[in-house]
């Protein structure tokens, strides 16, 4: 049988159910907020497990090793290729655990009336894979082409190309001869390496390697993926050098269509983006916990002050300080315990759902998410610990109440002195008495009002900070996109533009100017970077903070110079005048950095090279992209030119992809709006906690002042008078919270933007428009008035007789 004190602890919570429920919700929200920390770590673990299961490559190379059997003139010599035996020798190299060689093809998929650009990935044997294992998630693995054409679709393809075919459906895939051949989708399959491409670049279709060879009328492979025994950066680099040296020995004239990719241990596609969001998650967690601490503290203080008389009685009948503390501590632990359990369950669900969403959206991967038991333990300890911590002032107060003081209060009498704020409201004689009543009560209960306003301020501050962060990021994105000039970007798919094609482009109606560009990549600073060959007078609006741009002499003279983005310069500690080593398709080349560009194209981690230099370094005699400026930026003109270019190249038997800049900008803006929406959503729980605090305080005020409501009603106050008094109180608290929230939001925004800039090795100009606090004020007033409805309804519905008898 529970002791009387134990029963009292429990009944305190059931007696004021609404207040208890609100406190529990807040604690639960705070504990749930803590689980935001679990998202990046959980995601990292899940992706690591998936990477291990898929045998994600450590080194990927892109040799041009396909043997074109259809055209004897293009048949490579033995010096340009490696044989099956030589591939076996590669497997035997030290530190090489496994090698997978695959043919891949850039082509098109037709489903119904829709045509998508896709990568066709050839898998030698679906039953026996060693690196980047494609696992069948639904249906069957495709059979060899002789048994009919079958394909396995990567489900992440839906993210980029909208290719959402289901197993059993018939699709068409374009072969090297330009014809679409019918395929049956045998199933859905994925591997972490290619699903990332499917999620980011375009749809991926897996077929037997023989199918790719059949479609390209060739033999061999053009990707080489290696799994290492030791994938530490130094060991991986040494192994890459050894592999390169071996390949140079057995096939000295072999060329590459891409730079080698050495994957950093533990890295996965999208990891940077996820971890870049960490400051936001930290802010949310911190605000949720701070908000909950304030609310628990206020609630416990209220309980103690409401029960001053009861504490006096307990002391009068011999209750020791320890017994009284134990009584209230039990109430706290009950509230904290229930809130923590709910918060933990909600946190597990939220982090798991959010983590899955992120990994599927960013990485296109369904990884094996599991809950880390340490997080459960830490979450429970934090939930209970913070509840107890927050209630310490109230517990201390409870033990200090004297019997005489405790037993001496009744009625609506309030022994507190009028403070400065309260005296100030007296001068506002234009306000009605009910409004004055509300405002003076707010001013008189300073601690509670301050705590409630602080909670609202945290909510307002979070929303402001997230809005400022979003606006800052949007502004940076828009400036970046505007600098990427040219109304159209025309890509040869695959291949290069020769001079005739360049002339064809320039001759189209409404084309004002065309500019050749070579899109490529180079390894620098431990990772693969976009390395574009640009002319001396590019359409692109560079924004140099140091050094200079290329001269005509640099371009024509094939100068070994480069302009790099500031974030890349910052992270590699590179300055103008430094010489840097670039890993290119033709090997390591040293170039001098002559300029630092502030633009954030590719997050600022780019390398601009003089066009002719890039051609040499990339072994590409022609550009693979043309930037096109039309005679008018009007959408109809741009669209007409884009369509004209597509059709004229298609008629000539060449495939081009045309990106329309204004559409890209609109798409980026739409995408940004989604991201901003998600960011704002992340801030909503803090707003919710702030509003819970407001409701809790107002409910407590209504409860505490029940007798006062009875008096007012007895004196002839109508519902609107009672409503006005409490609404004035609630709106004043919300408005004070808004006022405090502005500097809080500003500081938070600065912190978030600073962290974000630091993660990107750059800095952003804070965008804090003056209208934002005004919008926040309107929002706060509206939300406050909505959240105040339940306590106001309670106040108004009270019968004066019941209110006067209320204890």
């Amino acid at each position, binding site marked *: 049988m529970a002791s009387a004190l134990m029963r009292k602890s429990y009944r305190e919570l059931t007696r004021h159910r609404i207040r208890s429920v609100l406190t529990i919700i807040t604690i639960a929200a705070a504990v749930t907020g803590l689980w935001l920390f679990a998202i990046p770590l959980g995601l990292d673990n899940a992706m690591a497990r998936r990477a291990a299961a898929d045998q994600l490559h450590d080194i990927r190379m892109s040799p041009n090793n396909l043997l074109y059997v259809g055209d004897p003139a293009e048949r490579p010599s033995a010096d340009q290729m490696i044989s099956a035996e030589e591939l076996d020798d590669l497997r035997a190299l030290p530190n090489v655990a496994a090698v997978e060689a695959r043919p891949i093809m850039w082509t098109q998929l037709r489903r119904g009336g829709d045509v998508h650009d896709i990568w066709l990935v050839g898998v030698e044997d679906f039953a026996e894979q060693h690196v980047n294992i494609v696992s069948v998630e639904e249906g069957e693995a495709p059979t060899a082409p002789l048994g009919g054409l079958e394909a396995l679709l990567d489900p992440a393809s839906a993210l980029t190309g909208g290719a959402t075919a289901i197993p059993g459906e018939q699709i068409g895939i374009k072969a090297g001869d330009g014809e679409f051949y019918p395929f049956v989708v045998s199933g859905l399959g994925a591997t972490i390496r290619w699903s990332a491409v499917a999620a980011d670049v375009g749809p991926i279709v897996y077929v037997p390697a023989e199918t790719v060879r059949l479609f390209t009328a060739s033999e061999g492979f053009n990707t080489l993926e290696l799994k290492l025994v030791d994938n530490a950066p130094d060991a991986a680099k040494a192994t890459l050098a050894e592999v390169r040296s071996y390949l140079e020995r057995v096939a000295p004239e072999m060329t590459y269509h891409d730079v080698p990719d050495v994957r950093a241990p533990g890295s996965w596609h999208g990891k940077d983006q996820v971890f870049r969001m960490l400051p936001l998650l930290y802010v949310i967690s911190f605000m949720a916990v701070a908000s909950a601490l304030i609310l628990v503290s206020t609630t416990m203080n209220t309980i103690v002050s409401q029960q001053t008389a009861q504490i006096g009685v307990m002391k009068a009948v011999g209750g020791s300080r320890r017994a009284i503390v134990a009584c209230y501590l039990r109430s706290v632990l009950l509230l904290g315990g229930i809130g923590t359990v709910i918060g933990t369950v909600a946190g597990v669900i939220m982090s798991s759902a959010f983590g899955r969403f992120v990994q599927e959206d960013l990485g296109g991967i369904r990884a094996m998410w599991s809950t880390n038991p340490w997080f459960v333990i830490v979450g429970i300890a934090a939930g209970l610990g913070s509840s107890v911590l927050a209630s310490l002032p109230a517990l201390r107060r409870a033990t200090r109440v004297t019997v005489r003081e405790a037993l001496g209060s009744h*009625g609506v009498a309030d022994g507190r002195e009028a403070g400065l704020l309260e005296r100030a409201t007296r001068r506002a*004689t234009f306000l009605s*008495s009910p409004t*004055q009543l509300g405002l003076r009560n707010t001013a008189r209960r300073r601690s509670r009002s301050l705590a409630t306003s602080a909670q609202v301020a945290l909510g307002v501050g979070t929303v402001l900070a997230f809005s400022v962060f979003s606006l800052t990021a949007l502004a940076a994105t828009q400036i970046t996109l505007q600098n990427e000039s040219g109304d159209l970007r025309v890509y040869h798919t695959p291949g290069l533009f020769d001079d005739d094609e360049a002339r064809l482009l320039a001759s189209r109606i409404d084309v004002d100017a065309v500019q050749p560009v070579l899109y490529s990549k180079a390894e620098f600073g431990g990772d693969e970077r976009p390395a574009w060959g640009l002319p001396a007078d590019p359409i692109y609006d560079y924004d140099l903070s140091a050094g200079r741009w290329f001269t005509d002499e640099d371009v024509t003279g094939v100068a070994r110079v480069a302009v790099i983005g500031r974030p890349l310069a910052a992270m590699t500690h590179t300055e103008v005048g430094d010489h840097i080593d670039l890993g290119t398709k033709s090997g390591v080349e040293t170039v001098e950095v002559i300029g630092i560009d502030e633009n954030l194209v590719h997050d600022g981690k780019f390398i601009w090279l003089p066009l002719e230099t890039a051609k040499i370094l990339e072994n590409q005699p022609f550009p693979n992209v043309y930037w096109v400026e039309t005679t008018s930026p009007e959408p109809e003109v741009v669209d007409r030119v884009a369509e004209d270019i597509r059709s004229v190249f298609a008629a000539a038997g060449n495939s081009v992809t045309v990106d329309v800049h204004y559409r890209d900008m609109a798409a980026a803006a739409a995408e940004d709006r989604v991201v901003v929406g998600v960011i704002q959503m992340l801030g909503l729980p803090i707003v919710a906690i702030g509003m819970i605090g407001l409701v809790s305080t107002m409910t407590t005020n209504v409860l505490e002042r029940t007798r006062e409501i009875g008096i*007012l009603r007895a*004196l002839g*106050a*109508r519902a609107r008078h009672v409503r006005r008094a409490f609404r004035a109180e609630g709106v004043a608290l919300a408005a004070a919270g808004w006022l405090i929230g502005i500097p809080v939001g500003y500081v938070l925004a600065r912190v978030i933007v600073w962290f974000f800039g630091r993660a990107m090795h750059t800095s952003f100009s804070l965008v804090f428009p003056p209208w934002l606090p005004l919008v926040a004020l309107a929002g706060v007033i509206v939300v406050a008035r909505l959240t105040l409805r339940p306590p106001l309804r309670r106040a108004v519905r009270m019968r004066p*007789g019941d209110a006067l008898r209320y204890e």
Partner: protein
Amino acid sequence: MALRLMSGATRKRTDASDMAHSVGDGPLVRLEGVEKVYRTGRLEYPALRGIDVTVDRGELVAIVGPSGSGKSTILNILTGIDRPTAGTVTVAGSRLDEMNEEELAMWRGVNVGIVFQFFQLLPTLTALENAMLPMEFAGTGTARERTARATTNLELVGLGDRLDHHPMELSGGEQQRVAIARALACTPDLLVADEPTGNLDTEAAGHMIELLTALNRDGMTVVYVTHDRSIAERAHRVVSIRDGLVANSGGISWPQH
């Protein structure tokens, strides 16, 4: 003490004024077969078991009875603070048992002045603001008129020099006088007081009952609840309540405890 509380007051016509000061030929208060049962969870407690009480205009009536007899319930019923479980309540020509809470609040603001045992002044308002409050609820007069009227009422109860004092800065007797000034705000037909001297010392209690009798002499109907025999003896008539029933209504017949 000469009181001319109802002279010179300007009454602004409002929606509440429709309910104000109904004049009839019968008694000012008529309770017929009034029952009141309080329910707390599964428990039912009958406070009034079918009482009939009338109070004529200009009467000074004391309601007496032991604790829990139902005397405060009668006050609550005739002011519309509580609703009867059965029976009819007619005050100043209005059927209170047929009104909803909002109508009752409006009616009360204009027709009844209430003085509570523990004064029940609002701690955040000054004496003047407390005394103005019912006028504001009833929408009576302009702000200037309300201030003037509340000031007059406070001066008449002897608190002209305490206008800006908060309740906690006043003694018990002074607080009770503010409560009376507040009750007089809308020049009601009926003044009810629940144990008006219960929380005062003998001297303050004496002043209080003087004030009530003076108001009655000026024509106001006054009904009060008391435990104190000497206070009850000052009334024209004493209504004695026992176990929720009227034990005696007429001359002074002090109930046996």
